[in-house]
């Protein structure tokens, strides 16, 4: 590798690192994304073969025509996906793009591995097999995650002995991998390789199928870091340093992000992956019977408007229900209307509200809610006692006091927003259906809680009209 290429790659790596760093603050996040994109562009324009030839100065063959066409098709698919997706469906889109990246990583490694007449060291064989395995399971797993978030087979799919079966599949995959590492040029190697590839695809499906829709953010984050590692392994295999650096950065930051998300839910990552959360719900059912005939107290919109209009401090807790009802603009309008009347309005954002960490922030940002009105859970909880009205819009599990009070509850120990400590809680909800975790919400039965039933968007419009009229 010439020193010029080395210097360019160092520059690209610095751009990626600065880009991710800038993504860490709301003020600079957009710039950070652009800096990373600039790094990508520089790397693309200066792309060299491992042997040192500049890729774009080689003779224009049919392969190059295919590269141009393929890149263009991908660009069009990416652009259509990126600009047509609704903000509520953002997690699905990320899952899909991640799956495509994983698929590409698996294909690149496969092609290198089954290339005829090549000699490779054991180490390189291992990196190729690793990239194939991780890339293909990330591909199929991401597609299942996408389908689950789209509402197809949202419920966890479990059967007895599932973890054992998955473990066995993994053992077979690893066995084949071990065989291929030693006999990478044997005549049966291609067959064994294809079997391993297919099993890895299947394993991705089998791994994500038993996980409930509520845990998809964690799964997508994990698969995102998997794809990063597969790309890094590809970088080793085809000797491209920029790929090693970029893939590794994504792999390690993605792993940390996954752990942070699990921490926010107070569940170890193993529990997310193998716990089949929300399938049994045995603890939750037991908790529900403890309610001892307590009933919920409904409230009408005009009364709710009065409570809100004469409050000093209002905290709004948005959840996935708000996203489904597409009510973020009405929420902002309500907050503005209350603001005009001198009510102090803040938004309490639970780290895992919605289907992805920060999902609510994105939605509220779309509706032009300034981000300094958005408070994180740790900041808002100590002030909850002084709050007059806490308005819960389509959030459920993240405000369930069972996480504090009911030791038998599956969500016991998860940090929650202490909505129940406000003087009055108004819960906007379509029906009494349980939340994503499939358990009863004790909050609905508290003495200071009022339920405002109906579609969130319609209810908010009524509230706004009432406030404007009074």
């Amino acid at each position: 590798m010439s020193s010029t290429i080395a210097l360019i790659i160092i520059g690209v790596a610095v751009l990626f690192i600065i880009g991710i760093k800038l993504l860490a603050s709301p003020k600079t996040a957009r710039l950070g994304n652009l800096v990373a994109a600039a790094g990508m562009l520089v790397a693309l324009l200066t792309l060299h073969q491992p042997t040192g030839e500049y890729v774009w100065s080689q003779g224009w063959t049919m392969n190059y025509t295919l590269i141009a066409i393929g890149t263009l098709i991908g660009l069009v698919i990416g652009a259509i996906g990126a600009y047509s997706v609704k903000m509520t469906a953002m997690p699905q889109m990320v899952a899909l793009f991640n799956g495509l990246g994983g698929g590409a990583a698996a294909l690149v490694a496969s092609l290198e591995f089954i290339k005829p007449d090549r000699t490779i060291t054991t180490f390189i064989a291992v990196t190729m097999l690793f990239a194939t395995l991780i890339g293909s399971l990330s591909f199929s797993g991401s597609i299942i995650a996408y389908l689950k978030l789209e509402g197809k087979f949202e419920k966890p799919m479990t059967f007895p002995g599932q973890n054992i079966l998955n473990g066995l599949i993994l053992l077979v995959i690893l066995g084949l991998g071990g065989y291929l590492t030693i006999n990478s040029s044997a005549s049966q190697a291609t067959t064994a390789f294809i079997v391993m590839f297919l099993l890895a695809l299947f394993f991705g499906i089998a791994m994500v199928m038993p996980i409930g829709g509520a845990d998809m953010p964690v799964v997508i984050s994990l698969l995102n870091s998997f794809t990063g590692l597969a790309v890094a392994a590809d970088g080793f295999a085809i000797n491209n340093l920029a790929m090693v650096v970029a893939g590794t950065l994504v792999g390690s930051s993605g792993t940390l992000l996954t752990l942070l998300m699990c921490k926010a839910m107070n569940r170890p990552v193993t529990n997310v992956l193998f716990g089949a959360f929300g399938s049994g719900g045995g603890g939750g059912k037991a908790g529900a019977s403890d309610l001892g005939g307590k009933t919920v107290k409904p409230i009408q919109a005009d009364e709710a408007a009065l409570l809100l209009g004469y409050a000093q401090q209002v905290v709004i807790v948005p959840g996935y229900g708000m996203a489904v009802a597409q009510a973020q603009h009405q929420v902002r309008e309500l907050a503005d209307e209350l603001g005009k009347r001198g009510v102090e309005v803040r938004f309490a954002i639970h780290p895992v509200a919605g289907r992805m960490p920060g999902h609510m922030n994105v939605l509220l940002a779309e509706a032009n809610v300034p981000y300094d009105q958005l408070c994180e859970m740790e900041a808002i909880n100590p002030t909850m006692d002084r709050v007059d009205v806490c308005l819960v819009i389509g959030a459920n599990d993240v405000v369930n006091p069972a996480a504090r009070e009911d030791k038998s509850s599956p969500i016991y120990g998860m940090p929650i927003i202490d909505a129940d400590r406000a003087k009055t809680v108004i819960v906007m909800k379509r029906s009494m259906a349980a939340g994503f975790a499939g358990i009863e919400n004790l909050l609905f039965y508290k003495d200071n809680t009022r339920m405002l039933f109906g579609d969130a968007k319609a209810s908010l419009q009524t509230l706004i009209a009432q406030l404007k009229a009074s």
Partner: protein
Amino acid sequence: MDTNVLFIFILSVFIGFEVISKVPSMLHTPLMSGTNAIHGIILFGGILVLAGATNPMARTLGFVAVIFGSANVFGGFMVTDRMLQMFKKKKK
């Protein structure tokens, strides 16, 4: 094996941990999306493999890899930008 590459790999692991350790949870979605775009660098892997393809199967699979990688990298950066352009401070 080139130990320099391994050295770079190890350092990258630590840098990856370091740069996101202080990210507020409100930015987790854009961050996930942004890093997702960065691993779209796999497009280069696709390009390099397709450039050296010598048989129809390698061409077909390489072509698919380029499409996938390209959608990952372009779509990833665009969708992240679309999310982030909406983060605005209150106009005073």
